[in-house]
């Protein structure tokens, strides 16, 4: 016997949700028929501030769009201004941006792994994931001066340089971090409890992922070979890059993509460190941006697009950000349909939602 359809509100505040997204779950018995998302709880109107701050100062605001992938936002914004003004960034600065971008990817993925373990009630695993994240944050603080908001990008390069001595010591510390991450991901990929909650849950087929415009690990977990880093922006073209792709499209595949990307990022940081060119880290910037530019980068959650438009003054006229979480919401709605009610929190988390970033 089937019961009548009921609507259960899920979020914006829920014990497993780190961020406020609201879903109206249409359920029949214990099965979710469909989900109606509603967003807009943490809109801050950051984009409209662009015509009230000088473009060089807006870098610090662009960085605050997101509290996790902050570095990528600032580097994408700078990349856009530099593209518009035709500024040639010194190679050392692009290598440093690549290095910090990969460090922030590691810390974002470790944060997600921890939050996911916490959502299952696996608290010791959560502590371990965040313990490793802390050593990554220490590296970031020692090199940039900030833990989560690094504030190190500027138009024309970066604000700080790293010493050769620091780079050589960093290699040893990375070895230790990599060993700890191996132990951690071993649990995520082989533990019985975690597998029970991940394998076959929230399956997104390759076709659906493409049609619904999924991005980042959500798309790569479904077998789509989409990664902006393979276009070779910043130093990715020099260090060589191949995206991590999993075929199954379920929660386990998305988790596996993130686990494998941790080691890929460590590998990229190592290559960046050995090939680091010498020279200046920034060039002086003169004049004001005029024209428009689309700047794209790969964030921990997927591709981010910054649209910038200038009119020759020091204030930009238009600024628009398309964050990866927004494109992953249609995919999320599609994979929730047909799942068990008890699996909804975990499925929502597997797309790594970053609502603060999505609504700005």
């Amino acid at each position, binding site marked *: 016997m089937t019961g009548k359809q009921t609507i259960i509100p899920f979020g914006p505040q829920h014990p497993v949700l780190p961020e406020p997204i609201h879903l109206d779950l249409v359920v029949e018995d214990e099965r979710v028929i469909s989900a109606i998302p509603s967003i807009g709880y943490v809109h801050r109107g950051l984009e409209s501030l662009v015509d009230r701050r000088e473009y060089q100062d807006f870098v610090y605001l662009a960085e605050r769009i997101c509290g996790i992938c902050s570095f990528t936002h600032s580097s994408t914004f700078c990349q856009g201004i530099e593209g518009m003004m035709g500024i040639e960034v010194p190679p050392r600065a692009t290598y440093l941006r690549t290095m910090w971008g990969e460090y922030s990817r590691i810390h974002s993925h470790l944060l997600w792994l921890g939050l996911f373990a916490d959502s299952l009630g696996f608290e010791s695993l959560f502590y371990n994931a965040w313990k490793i994240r802390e050593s990554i944050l220490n590296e970031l603080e020692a090199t940039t*001066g900030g833990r989560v908001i690094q*504030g190190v990008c500027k138009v024309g390069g970066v*604000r700080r340089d790293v010493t050769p001595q620091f780079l050589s010591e960093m290699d040893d510390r990375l070895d230790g971090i990599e060993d700890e991450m191996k132990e951690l991901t071993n649990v995520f990929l082989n533990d019985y409890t975690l597998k029970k909650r991940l394998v076959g849950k929230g399956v997104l087929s390759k076709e659906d992922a493409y049609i619904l415009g999924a991005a980042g690990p959500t798309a790569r977990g479904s077998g789509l070979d989409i990664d902006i880093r393979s276009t070779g922006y910043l130093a990715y073209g020099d260090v060589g890059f191949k995206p991590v792709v999993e075929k199954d499209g379920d929660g386990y595949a998305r988790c596996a993509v993130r686990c494998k990307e941790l080691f890929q990022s460590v590998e990229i940081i190592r290559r960046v460190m050995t090939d680091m060119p010498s020279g200046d880290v920034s060039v002086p910037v003169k004049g004001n941006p005029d024209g428009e530019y689309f700047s794209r980068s790969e964030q921990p959650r997927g591709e981010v697009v910054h649209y910038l438009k200038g009119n020759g003054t020091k204030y930009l006229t238009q600024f628009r950000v398309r964050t990866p979480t927004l494109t992953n919401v249609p995919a999320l709605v599609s994979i929730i349909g047909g799942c068990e009610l008890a699996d909804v929190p975990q499925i929502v988390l597997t797309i790594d939602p970053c609502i603060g970033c999505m609504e700005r």
Partner: protein
Amino acid sequence: MKMLKTILKQFFHEPVTTLFPEEPPRNYAGTRGHLVFDPSKCTSCTMCMKRCPSQAIIVDRAAKTWIIDRFRCVMCGNCVDVCKFDSLSMEREYSKSAAAAERGVEKFDITYVKPEKPKKEGGE
């Protein structure tokens, strides 16, 4: 069983967290902890006020005061970069937590005296 090694390690390693009020928080040579103002060097050029992304600094040229709202400051260090007179610097220690009334807005009297030139006289 897969976590056995990790669990056993937990018994022998040092605590990874800091007992914050008793122990000072970790910082590094490059840490942007808090902003320090030197009133004897400030020429009231107001560049720091104009370029502050969070509008935390107010420079009053007439009253010769430099005011910072510590709770608005985001420690980006932009003012340190734009200050041509080395009046601002970043220190590595994080400031201790405080209530807004206690240490929210700090006011400094600018003590800079313009060096006298033989030909030209007077200030602003």
